[in-house]
């Protein structure tokens, strides 16, 4: 429970449950949203492209946070669910010429259906065994794509799609896509905050903490475990839909186990069981990847005698893996915990020692 400034109290359930409690919080949120949508004015296209990719990934990672962080169901198939969303979205756009505001939600639905299929075993198995089941989703996903009739998902060829359009606006540049991606990301994150603090979220947390006790209390664990997978995979599907419009070509080999593992890494770094943690983890890992991608060629060029390109570029893997290990050892509650400490210290300043 976050500390509130002296004098802030609630007289109704609505005010207690509101996202923001003080005018300062509302002003900060508004300022943040203005800043977010003004990013293309402030920064160059390179930064915007990074933000675009981070925003797409963050939607998938927020979904994973709901499945794993809130409901406690380990999931190593998030990338496959994202892929299914991308293919469903691309297929509807290519074969039926449907607009993005139908294809992207449909992609989410496609991801959710696949998520449910692989979530059903969660009733009987957990932990390591569930992880293996979700890895199976990752293995089966390319086979599904390649064995469906070519007209559905493009088979081995993949699908190329035209840019998303809304009236006269064509989302075909990094800047225009930024507004589409960031709008969807804001909506999805807002929904995620709502899901986890409502009845569904509380039931998921109960299942995560002790599923037998939850069942005794009347929580239908089959429904909630399946729902956790469905919601998590739906988020991945939405992210896949955005990916499809961003890259404009989808192939089965773009959604690998490697990415699913990284998504788990992102929620570890950000902090399990927190939507904000998922976002912070994504920003941290994607940011680190981008920094290393930029820095490595500079180091190679300016310090050719130190190890050569092999050292600088390969070192990125060590740094990324090392970051996750360091978080597990020194801050297992993730960046979200650090953020909460910093926020509380700011609020109770000048008494930060409290």
């Amino acid at each position, binding site marked *: 429970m976050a500390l509130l400034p002296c004098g802030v109290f609630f007289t109704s359930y609505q005010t207690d449950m509101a996202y923001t409690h003080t005018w300062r919080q509302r002003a900060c949120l508004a300022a943040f949203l203005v800043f977010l949508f003004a990013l293309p004015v402030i920064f160059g296209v*390179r930064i915007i492209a990074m933000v675009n990719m981070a925003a797409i990934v963050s939607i998938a990672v927020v979904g994973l946070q709901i499945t794993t962080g809130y409901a406690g169901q380990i999931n190593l198939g998030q990338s496959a669910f994202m892929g299914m969303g991308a293919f469903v979205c691309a297929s509807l756009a290519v074969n039926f010429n449907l607009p993005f505001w139908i294809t992207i939600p449909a992609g989410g639905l496609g991801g959710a259906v696949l998520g449910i299929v692989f979530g059903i075993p969660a009733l009987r198995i957990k932990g390591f065994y569930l992880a293996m089941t979700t890895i199976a989703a990752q293995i089966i996903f390319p086979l599904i794509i*390649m064995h469906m009739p070519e007209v559905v998902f493009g088979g*081995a*060829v993949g699908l190329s799609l035209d840019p998303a359009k809304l009236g006269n606006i064509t989302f075909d540049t990094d800047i225009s896509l930024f507004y589409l991606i960031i709008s969807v990301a804001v909506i999805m994150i807002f929904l995620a905050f709502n899901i986890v603090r409502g009845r569904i979220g509380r039931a998921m947390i109960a299942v995560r903490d002790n599923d037998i006790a939850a069942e005794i209390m009347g929580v239908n664990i089959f429904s909630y475990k399946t729902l956790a997978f469905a919601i998590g995979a739906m988020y991945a599907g939405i992210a896949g839909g955005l990916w499809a419009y961003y890259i*404009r070509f989808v192939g089965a*080999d773009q959604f690998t186990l490697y990415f699913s593992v990284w998504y788990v890494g992102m929620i570890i770094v950000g902090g399990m069981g927190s939507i904000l943690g998922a976002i912070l983890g994504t920003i941290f890992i994607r940011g680190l990847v981008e920094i290393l991608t930029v820095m490595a060629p500079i180091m190679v060029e300016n310090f050719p005698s130190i190890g050569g390109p092999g050292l600088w570029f390969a070192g990125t*893997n060590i740094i990324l893996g090392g970051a996750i290990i360091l978080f597990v050892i020194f801050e297992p509650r993730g960046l979200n915990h650090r953020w909460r400490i910093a926020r509380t210290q700011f609020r109770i300043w000048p008494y930060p020692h409290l």
Partner: protein
Amino acid sequence: MKQNRFFVSLFITLISTLFFAQSVFAAKYTYNISWSVDYSGPYAVLMPVLQPTSKALFAWWNETKGKELGIELVTKQLDTRYDPSVVASSWPGVLSSVKPIAHLGLGGPDVAALMKRLPNDKVPMFMSTATYGFIWLPNMWVFQPRPTYSHEAIGFLKWFHDKNINGRKLRLGILSSKVSPAYVDIVNGFRNFEKGADWLKVVGVEWVQMKPVSLVSEIRRLSREKPDFIYIGTNTSHVIAVTKAKKELGLKIPILSASHNSIQMSAYAARDMSLMEGNYDSYAVDPGINLNNAGAKTALNYCKKMELKCTWGIISVQFSVQQLLVMRAVERAAAKVGSENITGEAVYNAMYYSPFTEEDLLELAPTMTFTKDGPFSTLNLKVKATTVENGKQIMVTKDWIPIPNVPKWVK
């Protein structure tokens, strides 16, 4: 006093003239070429092999043709981790900061992430790999120095059939994997070609895992169909596993592999060339075992001059061809628009002016004629093939082997 002023003025004039003359005669236009590399992903092992040779080749061009034209080509590396998301998010930065006139792609992630946006960005991308059926599309800004993997294998198989097999079809067994659409595409290419060919029959396809423990049962099943060759277009693990399975089963069916899992690469992975005895590989570039062609001599001379540790082989050849294509395109663009006006679009247009001859490509690849029908040259396609005899890799023929017409299989 007046005399002193005169001498000072004369001195200043002379110095200024010298500086002006130097700047005029050494007029140099520097152009950047962005380059996707992978030091932290699955192809990290290739990078130390191709880096020194590339460095030598660019140094050679800058000192020879580049000097003539007043152009310096500078490569800017981008470690993509072989990840399309890294390519997609980095590319806008590459465009704005590097301002490349061409991009050297590494593989599928570059094609997937960039092929749709290159026409708008006006930057042509050059690949080193063979093509896949699904990017055999018209008006591409992607240029492939090699036709599809299916083309490369069919060229050799046709030659082998005509020379060694009379009165029946060549029986081909294929070992592949469904983990990547690219591997499935190669098989689709064979299947489609087989329909119209009176000399080739695909007798079986075994789909296997990427890192199999043993392929004995799959090879036993395939061998019942009595194939003349087993084609493997996937990876070196499969070549080694099939070689071991053949040994266990006492079979003598030769393996035909592509460039990335070629005899050299598989022998390198197995640390034993003798394991490859009797196997074949074929591709549309020189195999890199002849050190006397113009390409090998040029690259290795510059390696020596620059004190670089270069290894000449199929990997360095295929990347050299990719880079030579860019260099020759820049030369043609300079001739057309002038050294000072080279842009990505000028390089793109230059790809269609006239054929790139074998001489242009320093004998490392056959003559290529690019058209807007597809990303690779479809005229007079040729391959070279090698095999292993007595533990030594040798050329199957001295000359290039023509590839028959392979119909497009992705509509």
